[in-house]
């Protein structure tokens, strides 16, 4: 595959996956300003290193998300997390999925409810949840990216979702009338 084919493939990839990449980064950093900076960096690095992309080594999705993971590592290396609590104010705008505006509003509220709890997860759990639900990657793709087998990805993802479920239920119980 020559450089132009690679560039065409990158365009096609952007067409399909850029929003997923952005969401993955937001899941990790929970901050719009930082996410914008990182995604712009990832695009720049992807274009700069396109000649190094070799599809025999893996999919373009794995390659671009690999660049994103490294950019995130750089981000966390040079910045100490300023507290772990996630605030809605720091997050980008959220779109709800639904057929009617009412459904979309409900989905946004439910999404916010769970996204605010991501700081209860370990970095690995947060990464897997981000790749799966932010990046919308398949189990196989996550496994390749993280160097895990697919069973392990499933177990870790399940544990992470279970942890979020427990925190949600605890918060629910706190608000229940006694």
């Amino acid at each position, binding site marked *: 595959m020559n450089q132009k084919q690679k560039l065409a493939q990158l365009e*096609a990839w*952007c067409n399909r996956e850029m929003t997923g990449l*952005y969401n993955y980064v937001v899941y990790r950093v929970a901050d719009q300003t930082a*996410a914008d900076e990182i995604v712009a960096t990832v695009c720049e690095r992807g274009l700069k290193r396109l000649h190094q992309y070799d599809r025999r080594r893996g999919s373009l999705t794995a390659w671009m998300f690999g660049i994103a993971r490294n950019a995130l590592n750089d981000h966390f290396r040079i910045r100490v997390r300023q507290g772990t609590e996630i605030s809605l104010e720091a997050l980008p705008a959220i779109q709800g*999925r639904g057929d009617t505006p009412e459904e979309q509003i409900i989905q946004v509220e439910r999404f916010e409810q769970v996204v605010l709890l991501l700081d209860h997860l370990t970095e690995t759990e947060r990464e897997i949840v981000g790749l799966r639900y932010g990046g919308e990657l398949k*189990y196989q793709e996550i496994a390749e990216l993280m160097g895990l087998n697919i069973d392990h990805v499933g177990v870790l993802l399940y544990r992470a979702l279970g942890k979020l479920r427990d925190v949600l*239920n605890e918060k629910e119980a706190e608000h229940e009338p006694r």
Partner: protein
Amino acid sequence: MSQDRYSVSDVEEMLQGGAFRPSDDLQIRVRSALRKPPPAFPVPRYAWMAGLTVMVVALVLTGIVIALSPKEKAASIVYGIGAVYEAGLVHPIDETRQVGDISLTVDWVYADWNQILVGYTAQGRADHDIHVRTGVVSARLADGTALKGDAIAGYGEMGADSSVAAFDMPEDVRDRQTIDLQLVLQAAYEQYPTPSETDPAEEAQNPSPSGASSVQLEPFAVITTGGGETTFEFSIPVTPGRVIEVGQTVEAKGYAVTLEQVVIAPSMTTARLCFEVPDPVHFRQWFSFVTLTTGSKGYSGAGDDYQVGEPYSCQRVEIGESVPLDRDRYIFRVDELAGFEFHPGDIVTTDMLPEEQWRVKGPWVFTLDIQP
């Protein structure tokens, strides 16, 4: 004790119900990033590509959906066939075979002196998290010659998958009017199961010994179901091209480069280029970057099929644009040879290939005057 309100499935649905929207500010920044040409290549070469990239990203980030069918999308992302697809040079086949409950259709075919292309679509049932996957099992000419190539692009939607398979045209058959192709395709469903919980009632009757949440983990292997293989046989008219036997050697910067042959065809142009590798020991991956000019227009391309360590490389250079066939003069310029450092034992990941490089800028210029 009140029953827990949320289950793992609820959490999953909550996460799937929303998404973050990239800001306008990010859109501007991404545009800016993509406008910068890759530093490894000269600006004019990829300027139009960068423009297209900006346009595509802008469309994505502003939420505009390109209204193309999956097969049009698949065709649109394969570089080198845009011109022939849009000009209607591809030949419709629309032949469908049933593979289990998946319909596998060869939509169109195309052949010229450089490549053979087959566009095909699989249509299965549209279930959430079940993906239709296709692949080429084999591709042979009627005389048994196996074709080299693979599926180079695809576009999937729920329940459907469109792909284009590309094969190199064997040199010894390219002057035929038609070729007979036997293509074996496969299709199947792939499912990535989501975790599930035990029934709460069952959990109450059979509490887990540890007291922890009793989670029944299902095996998380990818499940492949349905489908199978099927064989298509069809004739493909060969759109002729032009072969220019060159056989010239030019020396520049102390290195000799030989242009053996150029093949111009409507979907793409290829060339066979041989050169002394400046340093196969320290820079173990070598590329050639070229420009073919005719009239006032230049078409760029690259060769990258270098075998690590070889001191003398003969590469297939590909120029993925439609170059006019009928000109009497072409200028083929090798702009540079680029080597990348890569040592055995280096830790190389998909995104961290070595940055060190040695770029030998020529140019090596070959003038191709075609006698009528």
